[in-house]
């Protein structure tokens, strides 16, 4: 098994491996140039760059889906190297934690329905498969092709779980077409399923022509007719056709995946006008909380993107890199735009989100929050093997926090209750006990340790004073309880619970 896995990885790299020539630094500069022009036009002065602690926490949450341990945080803060931010980015994007984090991100973006309880096993298998492919550095285009052309039935010895995409759309041509168009092209065709869309350019025929690529093929007849599909409640039958017009790239050899293969090669071709733009828009929204085009699935709708030239340049660079996700993540997180602080003067009106002149305070996904709690309380992440009971716990926790756009989601009362009264609080007790019992640390050093573990920074003097007073007031023998109060407050605060 390991040998075969390694072979597959090597083949994957040889076949479609991203080119390593692209320079993320150049692209980061281009991002900042485009945005600087936009800020000048809007007469908005962007906020300064985030300090090291703010950057560290964002980079960990965005690239690895968790926060640094206290030791990692202290090491980064005390590191005097000039390019330590770039070094950190390089290390994080290549980390196993990053593959795991983005497996969740893409699984949720491509298969929002997989968060429903009944889809659990498929969601898990799909995510595990994605994790392996991402860890192997597979190109984004290749991932999408594998998802779109997965065999409809499990084949002996076939490790691919990409089939979940078919299963969770019930193998229905209309649902597969709508889901694939939305996820991989940023096109919302859903309304055209029932009627010609009043505003956008999609007709009902176009919807069903797209759906026909996903129809179960009939045995006989010329290629296109094998996939002919009857529009429900009508007597009209349509054959596969591309929404962009043009010739369908039918595969040379026909099998029962022929329609999906044709759709996949059109969708992931460099000439496709939507594919790369949609991918960079999703990555941007993931890293900034707001996409360059919003909503994320109206790429070809009426709403123009906020920065069309920027998006086009990102899309072109991403395609040129061989759809290398690590390259794209590195370039964007190295930009000044990404590294800005979320601080903003209390009284001043905040600039519109789409100018990206200030970092948004973003909500965390359930998985991010769960991993952050594990890191803060010194427990290992449950990603070593899938049967880890910790993985089940993570699922339960994440279910409570699931949201379509975690970055923008409002925290709910049940979520707040779960954090204030639930497992995280009780798990914290061991960390607190260890810190409280450490005979060689002063009270201030103990406070530093709790801050580094939870907020990835050291407290200011003004912050420390009331907390140290709380511990001092507890009296001899009661300090552990007082430290527990402090740590509880740290873990329940908005600073811990958000990405900022």
């Amino acid at each position, binding site marked *: 098994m390991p040998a075969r896995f390694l072979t597959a990885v090597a083949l994957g790299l040889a076949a479609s491996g991203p080119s390593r020539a692209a320079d993320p630094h150049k692209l980061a500069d281009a991002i900042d140039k485009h945005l600087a022009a936009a800020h000048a036009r809007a007469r908005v002065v962007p906020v300064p760059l985030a300090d090291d602690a703010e950057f560290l926490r964002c980079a960990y949450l965005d690239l690895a889906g968790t926060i640094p341990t206290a030791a990692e945080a202290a090491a980064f803060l005390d590191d005097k190297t000039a390019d330590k931010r770039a070094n950190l980015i390089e290390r994080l994007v290549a980390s196993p934690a990053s593959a795991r984090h983005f497996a969740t991100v893409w699984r949720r973006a491509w298969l929002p329905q997989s968060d429903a309880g009944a889809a659990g096993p498929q969601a898990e298998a799909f995510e595990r498969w994605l994790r392996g492919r991402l860890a192997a550095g597979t190109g984004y285009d290749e991932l999408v092709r594998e998802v779109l052309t997965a065999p409809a039935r499990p084949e002996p010895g076939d490790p691919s779980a990409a089939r979940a995409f078919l299963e969770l759309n019930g193998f229905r041509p209309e649902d597969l077409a709508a889901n694939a168009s939305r996820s991989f092209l940023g096109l919302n065709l859903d309304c055209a399923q029932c009627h010609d869309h009043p505003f956008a350019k999609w007709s009902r025929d176009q919807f069903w022509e797209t759906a026909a690529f996903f129809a179960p093929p009939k045995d006989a007849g010329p290629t296109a007719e094998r996939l002919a599909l009857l529009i429900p409640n009508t007597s009209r039958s349509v054959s596969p056709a591309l929404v962009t017009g043009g010739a369908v790239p039918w595969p040379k050899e026909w099998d029962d995946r022929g329609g999906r293969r044709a759709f996949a090669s059109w969708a992931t071709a460099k000439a496709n006008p939507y594919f790369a733009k949609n991918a960079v828009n999703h990555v941007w929204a993931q890293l900034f909380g707001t996409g360059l085009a919003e909503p994320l699935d109206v790429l070809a709708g009426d709403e123009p993107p906020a920065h069309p030239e920027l998006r086009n340049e990102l899309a072109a660079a991403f395609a040129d890199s061989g759809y290398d996700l690590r390259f794209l993540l590195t370039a964007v997180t190295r930009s000044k735009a990404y590294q800005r602080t979320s601080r903003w003067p209390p009284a001043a009106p905040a600039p519109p989100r789409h100018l990206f002149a200030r970092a948004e305070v973003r909500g965390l996904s359930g998985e991010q929050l769960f991993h952050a709690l594990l890191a803060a309380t010194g427990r290992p992440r449950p990603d070593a093997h899938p049967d880890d009971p910790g993985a089940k716990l993570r699922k339960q926790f994440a279910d409570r926090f699931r949201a379509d756009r975690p970055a923008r989601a*409002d925290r709910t009362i049940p979520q707040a*209750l779960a954090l204030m009264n639930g497992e995280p609080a009780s798990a914290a007790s061991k960390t607190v006990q260890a810190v409280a019992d450490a005979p060689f640390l002063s009270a201030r050093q103990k406070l530093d340790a709790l801050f580094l573990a939870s907020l990835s920074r050291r407290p200011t003097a003004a912050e420390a004073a009331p907390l140290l007073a709380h511990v001092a007031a507890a009296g001899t023998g009661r300090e552990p309880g007082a430290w527990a109060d402090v740590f509880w407050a740290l873990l329940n605060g908005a600073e811990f619970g958000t990405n900022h």
Partner: protein
Amino acid sequence: MSLPSRRRFLGVSAAAGTSGWFGRFARAAAPDPKRKRSCVLLWMQGGPSTIDLWDLKPGQDNGGPFKAIPTAVPGVRIGEHLPKVAAWMKHLSVVRSVSTKEGDHGRATFLSRTGQVPQPAVPYPTVAACVAKELGATAADLPNYVSIAPRRYDGLLSGGFLGPRFAPLVIAEDATGDPDAALRVAHLRGAGNDPARLALLDGMNARFAADRPGSVTAGTLTATARATRLMSEAAAGTFDLSAEKGATRDRYGRTLFGQGCLLARRLVEKGVPFVEVTLDGWDTHSNNFPAVQGLCGALDRAWDALLTDLKDRGLLETTTIVCMGEFGRTPKINQGKGRDHYPAAWSAVFGGAGVKGGRVVGKTSTDGTAVEERPVSAPDLLATVCKAVGIDPTKQNDGPNGRPIRIVPPGAEPVEELL
């Protein structure tokens, strides 16, 4: 709940005389005139077959096997599987002429809850959230809007642009199985209910929020504050259904919906302005009739118990009841003995506070396929809810980019015949 506090809670209730016919009688005789109104929405998830519930077509091909039975109001007949509800008809009115255009569950649900056609860029709040905003007290221990047993909320049906303060407390979301386990508010008690800890947390949050404005910061702080208030003894006890007598719980039916309605009553008693309880399963594309009969059993029993208890407590005068879904179902019965989505002609039911009972508004054709008299839109229904609970449906809230947006969109007319 710890033992002593539990006993204290029950003790207070007993001293106040919440049991026995005399207490009920005394309160029924003297409803609190200053009491604000509440609304309970019985949400029939999936699109109820209103042609089998409220607007039967006996003798027609489309009619199906169900009989129409007489009700407490002469001349008004409803489906045979709602006999207990039929006895309450003097307090209930049926709108038989609702007509909408959305036939997709998600879009139709959005329309019948917000009054708006979905536009991804504008997060409209539900009218329930608007009602909760108008009637609710900001400092109440209990949330002003509670949604019991809904299908996954998806953030679509929420406080929308009104913000997280007006989003519902969602209980038993997507729940199946044991109602008692599902209807709990998890983690209601624990390490967080400690004034010293909460004071430390407040200090930290205030410092963080001072120079990091934004909706996510505000939402996090709001949720923490609301969770803290909910932990108070009086608020938390409201969710404890075991405080009710076994016989009472049986009357509502030991279903998720039945116990959900009992919880709704307890919340309304404490002044919660908007409670919705979902009964799921109405998407009867095949074998419509046995499914509808089964759902009616749960609905009839719970609704009857809810009306009985509200009336006994003098709360029916201040509580509006609405029963509806996102659309009706095709009058024509399909090959699988089912009925499909049908927004063109369906019924909704209103009762209680602000509503004249015993009326039937509008009329559908003899085959049930078309509205013949008095068409009523989804926004009209929501304007009627607003009027019944005593708020102005044309009141404006600040929408995205500061654009003022009415609670119910312009053009909506309340169904005056019911008010």
